[in-house]
């Protein structure tokens, strides 16, 4: 299967947002959180994407970026990028459309505190079980609170 052309991807994602070709085999759609499931369904059905490479998550200081990287037999990396507001970082889950995404969503939830609505079990997976609630270490404004206990062995404990 030959690589996807930018035009093909733009046609499939028509009405969802701007499409750009970052380099040779990287094509990226920027869309809104509300349309992410639409975009993903189109990528799976119309662009034959069958493998999720990664859901990259980053804190850019003002908002949270989520980028879903997909590929398929055409070997082109199709990325779907959305921005989530800091005060209400919530987006609907895609784990029902793409089962491997479930793990990645839990990981992002644990480290950045983004809520994936409709996820069947958004429980702690990365951080240790005694890590305090509501502390998201990969947020840029996160600082360890000296009065809190972050797990492991307590200093001075008998």
């Amino acid at each position, binding site marked *: 299967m030959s690589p996807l052309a930018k035009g093909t991807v733009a046609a499939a994602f028509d009405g969802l947002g701007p499409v750009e070709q970052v380099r040779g*085999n*990287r094509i990226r759609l920027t869309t809104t959180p509300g349309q992410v499931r639409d975009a993903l369904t189109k990528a799976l059905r119309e662009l034959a994407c*069958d*493998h*999720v*490479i*990664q859901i*990259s*998550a*980053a*804190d*850019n200081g003002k908002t949270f970026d989520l*980028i879903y*990287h997909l*590929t398929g037999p055409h*070997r082109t*990396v199709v*990325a779907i990028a959305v921005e989530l507001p800091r005060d209400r970082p919530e987006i609907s889950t895609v*784990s029902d459309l*793409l*089962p*491997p995404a*479930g*793990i*990645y969503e*839990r*990981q992002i939830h644990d*480290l950045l505190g983004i809520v994936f609505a409709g996820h*069947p*079990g958004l*429980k702690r*997976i*990365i*951080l*240790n*079980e005694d890590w305090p609630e509501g502390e998201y*270490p*990969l947020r840029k404004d996160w600082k360890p609170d000296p009065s809190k206990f972050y797990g492991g062995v307590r200093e001075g404990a008998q």
Partner: protein
Amino acid sequence: MAEVVVPIGPQHPALKEPVNFKVVADGEVIVRLELDVSYNHRGIEKAAEARDFVRVVPLLERVCGICSHSHTTVFVKGIEEAMKVDVPPRAQAIRTIVAELERMHSHLLWLGVAAHEIGFNTLFMWTWRDREAVQDMLEEITGNRVNYGINEVGGVRRDLKPAVINAALARLPLLEQRIATYADMASRERTMLMRFQGVGKLTKQQALDLGAVGPTARASGVDYDVRNDDPYLSYPDVPWKVVTDDHGDVFGRTLVRVGELREGLGIVRHCLENLPGGPITTKAPRAAPRAEVLSRYEAPRGELVHFIRTNNTDKVERLDIRTPTLANWTSVAVSLVGQNLADIPVIVAAIDPCLSCTSRITVVDREARRTRTMDWEELRAHGIRFYREKEGS
């Protein structure tokens, strides 16, 4: 018979690294399994944000002890893309040689571990002895047996002298012969056939649906290999082919890995014989411009991804690592269902899990499709009820 929960790990004689399995079994048959691999979380992604590009490379080398070269190569490759630096061909070839030697020592190690899991310790001793030859080559080429320290942003840190090239080439014929022996054994040896065939079956559709990567996916007929799909280093210039198999079980995964040993040896030989001349490094700028790179790499265990964001400084703004073991756990949870308890070690070993890599971020999959969900309290209540009934009180 009622179901029982069998906890295994995090410290257990059958496991090489800390992981906790809660296996729900009905008699000898596995019904469901939960994993907890958070025991090795070290916060490396956060630590990487605080170090400049010179000092972050040794840190990333230590994400994993087996695929240390994978983590540094995928990172420097991404930074070089962000900086728009062209790496000299000689450096690319040296990185390719180390990468393939790393794949070979990793696959030989895996073959030994798999043999050990089925109680075939003779094969375990043989493969680990032959792995020493690969380690010796790595030591001669890079100066180290593990954590090679060969990569830097812009090139490699050590050149290959003719004496080293000749010594490495001289070691290859014996290794080639040993690999041929293992290929023959993997497809004919009775113990291996009995324990590997039909165990941990994963169809092509399942492998795709569950996002399996690397030899696990390629043994189910999925021909994804980043070296071919998104070419990097010297792979486009070297003759080699993607190894796939259609068996989909541990037997298939063994054949794929043995095939990759052979291909890896061919790549190493080609690169050593046709090593381009010229410098081994270019002067890279201290800082990287604002950029965002998704750097992909075919590590021994499968596709490794570093998502890198730079912001005009000499540090990364964000480094998001997705390791192959993370992608493969979902498929393990599914391929274990319906199998015998006794097959757990070999099925888990078949994806070649690397927990240091993975639990830097981690995993569990309680939502894997086709597995029934039951929370911990329910299980506990169930266990208590089961034993009450059994004891007749």
